[in-house]
């Protein structure tokens, strides 16, 4: 009796592990892994951001990068694949906490790429911190996020404390603007960024306004901008509002330069604003695709287009988590692994400081030319 039990227990455990490896909670994209199952944790990484909704492009660009990293990993580890779990927040802070809970409750999820936007990060990250589930955001740039003491917060790009001053510097030094108007959309991201620009530009700011997200008629703001005589307008916000705003400004005959930040670096801005988008300056702590030619080629091969805003950052963020999984880390030990990480990624040297901020930061300027967003170099 005793001897059979001795034999049966490990067998049962092995069978359980095999069975667990075979079931893939609802995910149909990846074939179930088999063989060598005893050591396989069936881990998942989460992608948290807007995958549908008006800001979906920014989320999808990141997701594309993440998927590329997963492909690389799963090719090397065919016996124990990692799958992607999507948490589609639509970029909406009110949906974020429930999604965070869903991710935390799924014990197979060992790390999150995201949350993509600052507002949803603020809403979801406290829960991730409490649960000890590591998050690496490839795109949320509000500086205050790093000041909350969240142990699980990491940011794979520069924040607006570097992007804001860079934008202000560009407006002052390159555009040689003397009268600048600043508008924000009252979001965590837009207002934070606009406030930094306001502070840096000081007395050359000739007027301020705040709009609401989902607004489409900007006639009052247009009057304020045109009557102020501003030669440049900085808008802190996202593309759904930036497109109608610049269109209505151009319709009213305003000739100044429109300056926006990474939240507008998205092809839909140009698709919707059309000719009015021409000449728009976009700052972004994201590297242009040609910085990492190998990544650019791989991305192009899979998606038939160049890497877009934060695709590279998404790839890097996912790679850090996947390296952790390869090194045998689970959810609890992943935090320390990410904290100690120091490797060259496709966008930069991937290394985090004590607050979880990226140690190596660059901000680039882009310009809309002939319906395309082209890089015009780093803002130094």
């Amino acid at each position, binding site marked *: 009796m005793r001897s059979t039990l001795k034999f049966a227990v490990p067998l049962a455990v092995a069978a359980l592990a095999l069975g667990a490896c075979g079931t893939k909670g609802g995910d149909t994209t990846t074939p179930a892994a088999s063989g060598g199952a005893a050591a396989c944790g069936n881990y998942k990484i989460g992608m948290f951001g807007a995958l549908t909704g*008006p800001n979906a492009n920014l989320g999808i660009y990141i997701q594309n990068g993440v998927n590329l990293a997963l492909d690389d990993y799963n090719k090397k580890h065919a016996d124990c694949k990692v799958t992607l779990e999507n948490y589609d927040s639509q970029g909406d802070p009110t949906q974020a906490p429930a999604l965070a809970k869903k991710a935390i409750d799924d014990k197979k999820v060992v790390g999150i790429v995201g949350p993509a936007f600052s507002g949803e990060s603020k809403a979801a990250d406290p829960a991730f911190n409490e649960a000890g589930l590591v998050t690496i955001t490839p795109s949320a740039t509000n500086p205050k996020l790093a000041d909350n003491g969240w142990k699980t917060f990491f940011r794979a790009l520069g924040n607006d404390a570097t992007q804001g001053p860079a934008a202000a510097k560009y407006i002052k030094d390159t555009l040689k603007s003397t009268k600048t108007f600043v508008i924000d959309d009252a979001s965590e991201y837009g207002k934070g960024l606009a406030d930094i620009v306001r502070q840096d530009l000081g007395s050359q700011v000739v007027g301020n306004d705040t*709009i609401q997200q989902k607004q*489409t008629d900007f*006639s009052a703001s247009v009057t304020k901008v045109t009557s102020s005589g501003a030669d440049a307008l900085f808008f802190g916000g996202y593309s*759904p509002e930036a497109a109608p705003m610049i269109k209505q400004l151009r319709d009213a005959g305003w000739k100044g330069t429109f300056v926006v930040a990474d939240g507008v670096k998205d092809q839909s801005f140009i698709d919707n604003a059309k000719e009015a988008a021409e000449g728009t300056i976009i700052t972004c702590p994201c590297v242009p695709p040609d910085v990492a030619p190998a990544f650019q080629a791989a991305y192009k091969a899979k998606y038939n287009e160049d890497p877009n805003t934060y695709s590279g950052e998404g790839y890097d963020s996912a790679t850090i988590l996947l390296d952790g999984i390869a090194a045998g880390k689970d959810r609890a030990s992943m935090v320390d692994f990410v904290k100690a990480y120091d490797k060259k990624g496709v966008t930069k040297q991937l290394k985090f400081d004590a607050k979880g901020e990226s140690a190596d930061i660059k901000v680039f300027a882009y310009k809309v030319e002939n319906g395309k967003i082209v890089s015009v170099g780093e803002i130094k």
Partner: protein
Amino acid sequence: MQNLIDNFFSYTITGLTIGAVYALIALGYTLVYGVLRLINFAHSEVFMYGTFAALWVVMILGGHPGAGVGQVIFWVAMMFVAAMAMSGLIAVLLERVAYRPLRKRNAPPLIALISAIGASFVLAEIMGLRSRIVGWVGLDDTLRDYVRNSRNNAGLPTIIQPQPIFTIGGYHVTNVDIFVIVGAIVIMVILDQFVKRSRLGRGIRAVAMDPEAAALMGVNRDRVIQVTFLVGGVMAGAAAVFYMLKIGITRYDAGFILGVKAFTAAVLGGIGNLRGALLGGFVLGLAENYGSAVVGSQWKDVVAFVLLVLILLFRPTGLLGESLGKARA
């Protein structure tokens, strides 16, 4: 405040432009309320479908900036045809599917209200999911340009380049501004005359005044109600064209805010009253712009609704306060 005084005409003209759009949508609420004593909350979606019809017809015709005058007139005329047809169709369909079955069963008004809200969601989501719907029926290759990014903004090519026509108080009034304001007023006058003089208009007024007596006098109530929805839809279609010319960008949920504003305009002017809708729309457009100038654009909606509350406190029936039946309009 100084900013408002300095740029008074700029705020006024742009306020009137958006107010004209509110007014045209408000007509749909007011007409339906007049004959059915029902707020058609799906009317915002009727408008939204109009914006897409206007956009698609320009895409089909290959609209582009810098075309000649004759070409532009043709495009704009086609926008009106497409948007009015689409919005009219959706409005009639809505009446058929969401309201008539309830009316036949003598459902209480609250049920119709819920049905309206449900219909509104269904219509908006169909537009929001159009890329997938097109995928199911296997037309995604042919219709790709029309359904791309179906939950994102869709922009109209600038077919009319705004040109300053004359300057008033430092504001350059553009051809688009004039077209929208004058166009809306002309359409209103036509509608006013239609309701006042035509046989169908008399029917609408009769049903609004006393449905049972109208039926006894030989007015076909169902037909009148259908015509009312159609007229409201056509007005929303016209509003959609003006909106696309002025704003130029639409989205599957674009109807929501416009609908709420137009409903506010209808109540402000006196719901059930056609001229009230016109007045309410313009007053609301102006109030929003003046409010934005004085206290900041983020307070735009607050100003609009505070105004509504204040007016309803002192004039519960709205500014003009008559119903469709009593008013001769």
